[in-house]
């Protein structure tokens, strides 16, 4: 939801590790993160701080998964990948490693997907390794 980015970030995990050297906090073990309607599940999440605020969440899992409601009356957007990088202020989610993004029945597969949560828009391809393979499955709407 548009209000998601202003909501507090709630985290549950098996353990947490505050590291002053890297100015990060790492959560490990069945990590569950929620912020408004956005939910994320991963094996490990590293939070990088900018100054004193949480700035970037880097989630890794087998796979890491997220879901979110773009609008109250719309279906869930779900995504997964070996890594999900969530920039808290810029509202951008970057999924890499067998990335899949699904909304309603449409799904996008690529090595790298960049999803803009505010505009509910995505950019697939342009993977870190340079492969541009994208697989798109769009189910035509049933005409009345």
């Amino acid at each position, binding site marked *: 939801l548009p209000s998601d980015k202003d909501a*507090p970030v*709630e985290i*549950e995990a098996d*353990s*947490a*590790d*505050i590291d002053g050297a890297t100015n990060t906090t790492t959560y490990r073990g069945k990590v569950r993160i929620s912020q408004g309607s956005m939910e994320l599940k991963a094996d490990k999440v590293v939070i990088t701080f900018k100054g*004193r605020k949480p700035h970037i969440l880097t989630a890794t899992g087998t796979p890491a998964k997220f879901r979110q409601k773009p609008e109250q009356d719309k279906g869930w957007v779900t995504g997964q990948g070996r890594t999900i990088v969530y920039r808290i*202020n810029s509202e951008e989610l970057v999924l890499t490693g067998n990335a899949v993004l699904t909304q309603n029945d449409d799904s996008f597969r690529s090595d790298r997907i960049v999803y803009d949560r505010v505009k509910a828009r995505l950019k697939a391809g342009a993977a870190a390794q340079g492969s541009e393979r994208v697989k798109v499955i769009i189910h035509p709407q049933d005409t009345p």
Partner: protein
Amino acid sequence: MRTWLLLLLLGVLGFTWWASRPEPSAISTTQTPGKDVQDYSLNGLALRQFDIQGQLSHRLLAEDMQHYRGSGLTRIQTPEYILYEQGSPVWTVNAARGELSSDQTLLKLFGKTTLEREADDMHPAMRLETADLRIYPHKEYAETDEPVTVTSEQNWIKSTGMQAWFKSPTRILFPAQARAHYVAQ
């Protein structure tokens, strides 16, 4: 007659034995084996420790302190333990009661215990609340198995247990049941 004399003699012997017997109550007050005897106490303790460069590194303050001869333990009331490190924020630890081991390598803090770190350019101030903390001064390390709550501005982390390495760059590990709340904006 002789029987009577014999009886008299036994009576005198018995009385003499009874009268010379040491008083049982006297034994217990002077020395009970195993009882840790307090050999001295202090009010208004202020202990300061300096590093090799002569910089103040630790301070231990307490209202009262009792030292025990047998165990070598020092029991402390309302201890305040302060950790200094050049160029890094000061850590201040407060507790209800404490116990310093005889070789001063372990400071046990009992009851409600708070750890507070000042803010610096990079980090906001931080406050940790827990109980029954074990501090190893020479390692500048502390640990507890009790629940811990960390607050820093509007953010918090709750966990069961903690391991903290105070020396900069600080590191704090929350080994179980970690929950956190961050204000994003």
